[in-house]
């Protein structure tokens, strides 16, 4: 059972206090999207065996959504940051690059 530090309230919460919310940084496809764009937005998932950017809600806590960068095999946590952003913070990207030089990036 994993533990993540909520960037909003600073609590290091265990999984039972959190709710997972799937892949982060998806771009919403609205009414004008093509079928392919809409399908991709709703379903196509990167699902990497490696670094994942995933949404979590501190549900049994401050109730806020945040994003965790985590390794999907080792469960190493590279960092967490508030969900109110469209891309991961630069310093976090640096941290991950340093840990995994072969990492192909978050997109």
């Amino acid at each position, binding site marked *: 059972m994993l533990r993540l530090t909520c960037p909003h*309230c600073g609590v290091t919460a265990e999984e039972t206090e959190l709710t997972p919310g799937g892949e982060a940084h998806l771009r919403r496809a609205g009414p004008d999207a093509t079928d392919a764009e809409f399908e991709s937005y709703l379903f196509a998932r990167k699902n990497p065996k490696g670094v994942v950017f995933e949404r979590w809600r501190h549900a049994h806590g*401050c109730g*806020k959504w945040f994003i965790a960068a985590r390794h999907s095999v080792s469960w190493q946590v590279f960092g967490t940051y508030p969900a109110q952003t469209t891309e991961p913070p630069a310093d976090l990207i640096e941290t991950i690059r340093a840990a995994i030089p072969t990492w192909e990036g978050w997109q």
Partner: protein
Amino acid sequence: MSDMVSALNGARFEGFAEITETGLCGMVQIRADLASAGLAQALGGLGLSVPGRRAILSAGDLELGWMSPDELMLFCPRDRAAAITQQLAQALGGEHAMVLDVSDARVRFSIRGEKADQVLMKLCPVDLPTLPQGEIRRTRAAQTAVAFWRVDGGLDLIAFRSVAGYVMGLLKHSARPGAELF
């Protein structure tokens, strides 16, 4: 009002710690930009200031807890809740803020005694020994959401009102005489 009843009507249990449902308690939920001057001023009117992250502070019979980056919970005597709600709402009239009297949405328990911590150590995934005085911790107790903080002689805990019976059941189970952890 005389026909008001709290969830468990003041139920008590004596175990290795003393558990009491504390009866009616006023609770006012405030959602606002916690950094706004208006909020500080509005709270100032009650002799309160904006608590820091996860802090709970008190002034007289008021307590004010930090619930999230844009939410506070004010605890007060039940009969003052409506007035305080109004007062704050008015004071915050110009802001994008929301003040609600949610007094009856929750139930409050007191856990008293030297071993009060141990009651919650059995229910909450929280490092109790390091919980400082003046911090309010939101978490879960077994399978339901709670928040608690230290007070003189033990801990106070709030949970949703509908599960008051469940939470009392948990606390009683935890505080059973002879079942101390240490």
